[in-house]
């Protein structure tokens, strides 16, 4: 009798045991740090182990929200997210629709288009940095070659063009990423639907694309747009490796601000406030999206 009892107990406990390692890791290295960030943002902490750590309440946040550079940085985030999301989604969708046209060797194209996605952002940044270089870089060289030397700029060193150049890099790198999602979704559309449309008279490829295929993959498009918005909002690697947010803060984003405040100016309390700020924004975006998705499903 006791053996059976023990067995039943083991049965009930097993799933919790299986879940345990994952929970331990996530709680220790994700949850706890986030809570710690919320806590530290309320203090003026400048050096680890500092003896006088002052509780300053919401002062860090007040400073964050009243600093004008915060808003230009936030605007950069919005610009980067908007342009990269729209760019990658549009190009990815077009590429996917193209490849869905019974293209011979579509798999080869897919391999090629996805390759830049797996390259480290740092490598891509340095490589494109060489292209954007004012004296020897490819772009200025070509501009001079075709007789437009006036258009040659110091691309990454110019307030107006720095962020735009980085946006171009990201669109180049991640169009393949969105494309594979769309392609997979398109390829799962049952042929009968396309057939039925043709029989009903919708004969043009463009028509089929617009009225049949794209509407059918709207859920996937929604997910990909959400992934891109969230992903581009967190962006750090590519910007740090090309311009470090410069010149000034013209290409800086929240993650860069966070890094600089924490690890260059050692304002940990303030940096944590930025961290909390980022967390809240991303959290809000995610919730909004989940609600839109839910609403979309009910409709």
């Amino acid at each position: 009798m006791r053996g059976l009892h023990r067995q039943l107990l083991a049965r009930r406990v097993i799933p919790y045991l299986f879940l345990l390692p994952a929970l331990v890791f996530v709680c220790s290295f994700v949850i706890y740090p986030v809570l710690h960030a919320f806590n530290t943002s309320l203090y003026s902490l400048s050096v680890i182990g500092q003896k006088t750590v002052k509780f300053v309440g919401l002062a860090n946040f007040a400073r964050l929200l009243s600093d004008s550079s915060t808003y230009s940085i936030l605007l950069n985030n919005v610009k980067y997210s908007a342009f990269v999301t729209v760019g990658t989604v549009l190009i990815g969708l077009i590429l996917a629709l193209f490849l869905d046209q019974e293209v011979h060797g579509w798999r080869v194209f897919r391999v090629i288009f996805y390759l830049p996605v797996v390259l480290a952002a740092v490598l891509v940044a340095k490589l494109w940095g060489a292209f954007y270089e004012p004296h020897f870089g490819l772009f200025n060289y070509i501009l001079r070659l075709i007789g437009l030397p006036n258009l040659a700029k110091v691309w990454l060193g110019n307030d107006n063009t720095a962020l735009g150049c980085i946006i171009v890099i990201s669109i180049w790198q991640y169009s393949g990423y969105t494309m594979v999602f769309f392609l997979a979704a398109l390829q799962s559309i049952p042929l009968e639907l396309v057939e039925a449309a043709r029989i009903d008279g919708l004969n043009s490829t463009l028509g089929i694309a617009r009225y049949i295929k794209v509407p059918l993959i709207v859920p996937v498009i929604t997910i990909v747009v959400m992934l891109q918005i969230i992903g581009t909002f967190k962006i750090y690697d590519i910007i740090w490796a090309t311009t470090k947010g410069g010149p000034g803060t013209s290409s800086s984003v929240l993650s860069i601000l966070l890094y600089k405040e924490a690890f260059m100016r050692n304002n940990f309390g303030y940096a944590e406030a930025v961290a909390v700020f980022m967390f809240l924004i991303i959290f809000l975006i995610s919730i909004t999206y989940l609600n839109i998705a839910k609403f979309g499903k009910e409709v």
Partner: protein
Amino acid sequence: MITTRKRTPSNRSLMKVGSRLVLYALLSIWAVIQLYPIFWMFMTGFKTEKEFTLDPLSLPGQVYLDNWVFAWQGGIAGAIGDKSQYTIPVFFRNSSIVTIPSLAALVLITSLAAYAIARYRFIGRTIAFGFFIAMLAVPMNSVIISVFILYAKLKLLNNFLGIIFIHIAFNIAFAVILLVAYFKTFPQELIDAATIDGCGDFRVFSRIVMPISKGTISAVAIVDFIIIWNELLFASVLNPKLPTLTVGALRWEGQHRTLWTPMIASLALAAIPTIVFYLVFHRNIIKGITTGAIKS
């Protein structure tokens, strides 16, 4: 699995020949746009600095290997600290030490958790799953400072264990969600057969479920490999003295005081492992990310 459709006559695209040519042309143009920078990177590595400054577009006139030797030996001017210490082989080694154990642990931990959520009924099951979904919204940036402070106290800075732990923790959410979707489709008969044969839960998991699930699990592992290998923020903040390839690459500058071609050769060298890995595993990578998203 992405199913390819049958090529019935009615399936053939209605596009006119002319339109199809334009289609292929456009696709090829984009293919060149995607590939040319990478090709240029390798090509430039074979040029002399003079060749490069004269004409960045030309093909190299000879096979000039100095850049590659230079790059391999870490002789880039402006390299961090002691040149002989921070070479590409060292970076490669560090990247491997960080990535491979993280993956191994990740596979084990997430499979266990996902299996539990997918195939057991227990109180808190939905909460647990929702918990992991919520974790997807936590950005690394919001956590890095706290982790840095925590590691400073625990003496986990510049320690491979530290960075392995954080990589595991941050990739759990994504992997668990993918694997739950997969484990839900696992045939119950196999589990029952094993149970009848006297296997306890863990045995069923390790002897039956895991081996059969190798395909999907490796797809997840492969996707995570790329993520961890290419990661910059944690690696640069937590382990500056044990630089991975990405951290090492950060210091390669190509400005006026340094030479360009060796730097570009270094980039190319650093890119080789990733490219090779990709060419071997590209199917798994694409399958891994798309099946998860589509199912969710």
